[in-house]
């Protein structure tokens, strides 16, 4: 094989290719269907919502990569929880408010993640079941404490995540982009932990024989997932400006979809956070286009569902097509 053919072959094998090409097509389709789709305002809001879903997909990706049929169905519930409780933390100083809020939502999420991890790794409960139960526990907890009537006012400080940095770029978008690359490169790709996670997720037996403590590695993936979900909830409420019960529950399924579109293998051992971000972009673009078309909510979610099935179908078949 000559070099250029090899190169083009490598590009075709790029796991991000489907998500990138679909995004470009969607941007063009959006602009054709509705005027002002590519306006600075709309781009800015697409980037914001993508950023929040990206956080959720990062949480999901870690667990999916960890293998053993790993799925975190509590991502949305944790987000809803911290969206509800995060804004309650208010101090006089803006900086302290922000720091304490972030630390406490992260701890809240990490604790739920730890329970998930213990359930999956020590009590040997199937991840899907364990995290679904946990999602219901977390939702119940929120309902119990707030008695179903959250009276949360989101402080101006927290709403600052929506402030414009320059052009269409806002604070949250910037934070997520930085976080994404830092975690992707320094945690997932370079750190001993990230590399052990891939090995444990790919072949737990072999990883254990290598002396890798797979149980600990996988447990940490669940803690990481909870931690990032906790952060995502706070960001969501800062952007939305008001909190509602279970406001983020849809993020569970969306995060799974985003991760799969981004080329992460549901069987574990393979994937990336950046892929999840691209998958998030695709999903948000679809939603955005359907919204721009003034479609009724029911029809919108129906069409969204059908498109999702289509994308996942192509995605799960693509390795075979390549062969």
């Amino acid at each position: 094989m000559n070099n250029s053919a090899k190169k083009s072959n490598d590009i075709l094998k790029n796991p991000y290719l489907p998500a990138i090409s679909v995004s470009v097509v969607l941007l063009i389709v959006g602009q054709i269907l509705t005027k002002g789709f590519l306006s600075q305002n709309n781009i800015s809001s697409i980037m914001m919502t993508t950023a929040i879903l990206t956080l959720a997909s990062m949480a999901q990706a870690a667990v999916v990569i960890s293998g053993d049929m790993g799925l975190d169905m509590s991502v949305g519930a944790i987000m809803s929880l911290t969206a509800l409780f995060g804004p309650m933390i208010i101090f006089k100083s803006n900086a302290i408010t922000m720091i304490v809020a972030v630390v406490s939502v992260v701890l809240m999420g990490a604790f739920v993640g730890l329970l998930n991890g213990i359930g999956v790794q020590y009590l040997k409960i199937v991840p899907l079941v364990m995290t679904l139960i946990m999602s219901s526990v977390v939702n119940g907890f929120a309902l119990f404490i707030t008695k179903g009537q959250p009276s949360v006012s989101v402080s101006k400080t927290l709403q600052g995540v929506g402030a414009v940095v320059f052009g269409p770029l806002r604070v949250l978008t910037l934070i997520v982009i930085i976080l994404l690359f830092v975690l992707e490169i320094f945690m997932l790709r370079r750190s001993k932990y990230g590399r052990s996670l891939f090995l444990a997720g790919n072949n737990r037996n072999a990883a254990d024989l290598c002396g890798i403590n797979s149980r600990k590695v996988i447990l940490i993936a669940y803690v990481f997932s909870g931690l990032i979900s906790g952060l995502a909830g706070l960001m969501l409420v800062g952007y939305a400006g008001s909190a509602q019960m279970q406001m983020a529950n849809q993020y569970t399924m969306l995060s799974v979809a985003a991760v799969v579109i981004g080329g992460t293998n549901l069987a574990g051992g393979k994937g990336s956070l950046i892929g999840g971000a691209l998958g998030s972009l695709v999903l948000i673009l679809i939603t955005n286009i359907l919204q721009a078309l003034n479609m009724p909510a029911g029809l919108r979610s129906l069409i969204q569902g059908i498109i999702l099935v289509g994308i996942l179908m192509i995605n799960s078949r693509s390795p075979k097509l390549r062969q």
Partner: protein
Amino acid sequence: MGIIISDISKRYGAVVAISRASMSVEKGEIRAILGGNGSGKSTLAKIIGGIISKDSGKIAFNDREINFTSPKNAKKNRVIITSQELSLFTNLTVEENICICDIPVKTGTFINKNGISEKAGKVLEIMNLTDLLGKKVSELHPNQQYMVELAKAIVQNPKLLIIDEITSALYRQDVEIVDKILKNLKSQGCIILFISHRMEELYNICDSVTIMRNGETIGTYPMQEKSEDELLSLMVGTSMVSYHGEGKSHIKPTTKDIFIHVPKIPIQSYHTTESLNICKGEIIGVAGLQGHGQSELVKALYGLSGIIYMEIEGKKCAISNPRSAVKHRFAFISGDRERDGVFNERDLKDNVVSVLELVRKQKVSSPKELLDSYNIRYDNTRQIITELSGGNQQKVVVGRWLSTDPKLLLADDPTKGIDIKARTDLHQEFAKLAEQGSAVIIVSSDDDELVSITSMVERSRVIVMYEGHISKILEGDDITRANILAASMPVAKPNKIKERDKVHA
């Protein structure tokens, strides 16, 4: 009559798996297909069996051109393939698995349980395996699973039976049965294509042999006309020294300094314990019949059967899991590379440096150098490991461990299903390790392998296991296949095997 294969080619992208392979096999002939890993044997077998499609060429079976589009299609024509990748349902019983391709039914709809037992029972009786009836496949030893796989093929009354590597996991007495069954099928006019790396079996079972190399069929010869060395050089393309001659003669060790003393090694399935002294620079071969505790012995030493106490160079220590074993510079290589060795989604670098960088916390400056030093054939370090042939994959796993400079290498049938060239390479690596003063304990289902590898170093022993105990320790010139076999079966000694063994010895 028979099968005529002409000019079959198959490419995967840029990789040529088979190029213009041709051969013809007569009715009632048992044909061996011999070649290194990656020479296209399995691909050819899969094409004939309808598992994968060919790019070009023709197959004529009983004077009729065939082009199977699926294994189901092939089965209708009674062309059956059994492969090294087992096609069993581990959650079903042995008899259900055997009949799965054609389940007996009552009144056209309902499963006939008695019919299943009867049908499977007949085959199992021929195979001397009636004690497997009613067991779940997941309960069986790997070699028994292979036998069930074979039974499943035979129950379908094949006219053309392809056996791909099935015997590489079998122990000698199983192979006897396979031999008997195949001869029986042969007398009924069945064509058998037999793929195996074990020369002795090929000579016993097959009538003729087709050699494959780099996807081409090099030639077909009557089995008895070619010596092992000749076959080997045909396979490799250059003449090479035979595998049996790789070692020196056995020397009985005079002095011994005990390196590791293990007072109690639990063999769980027999509820027995054994003790073992391991010397520096020693290769210990572990022999025995199927499932007599050989694997459990090495696994227990690696901390896989709970905490184990031992004295290493006089110091007492406890090994509770693989992690602590790795800390004591132990290494474990399993023959089941799919399950225990390879990270199939990861690249060569991740695979080869996994222990060194992630567990022993040493930076590997050049994974490429590491891979090169173990004679691995690869394109670049970022290749996914499954792009390599089985033998090369196993070499990567071996490289992973040898690069950690282990003091004790535990190997559980490490050369299962890899070609002779790769196997010889691995033996040399093991011998080199022992020469540097480390100890090697190797389990093998192939006695020849043990005789050969123990002859490569000065200090060596073969311990033979029977029912969870070490029944015999062979040293020096006592390490022969005949002695190993005799010690493996202290109770029943079938005369036939002994006689045949003497002839070979």
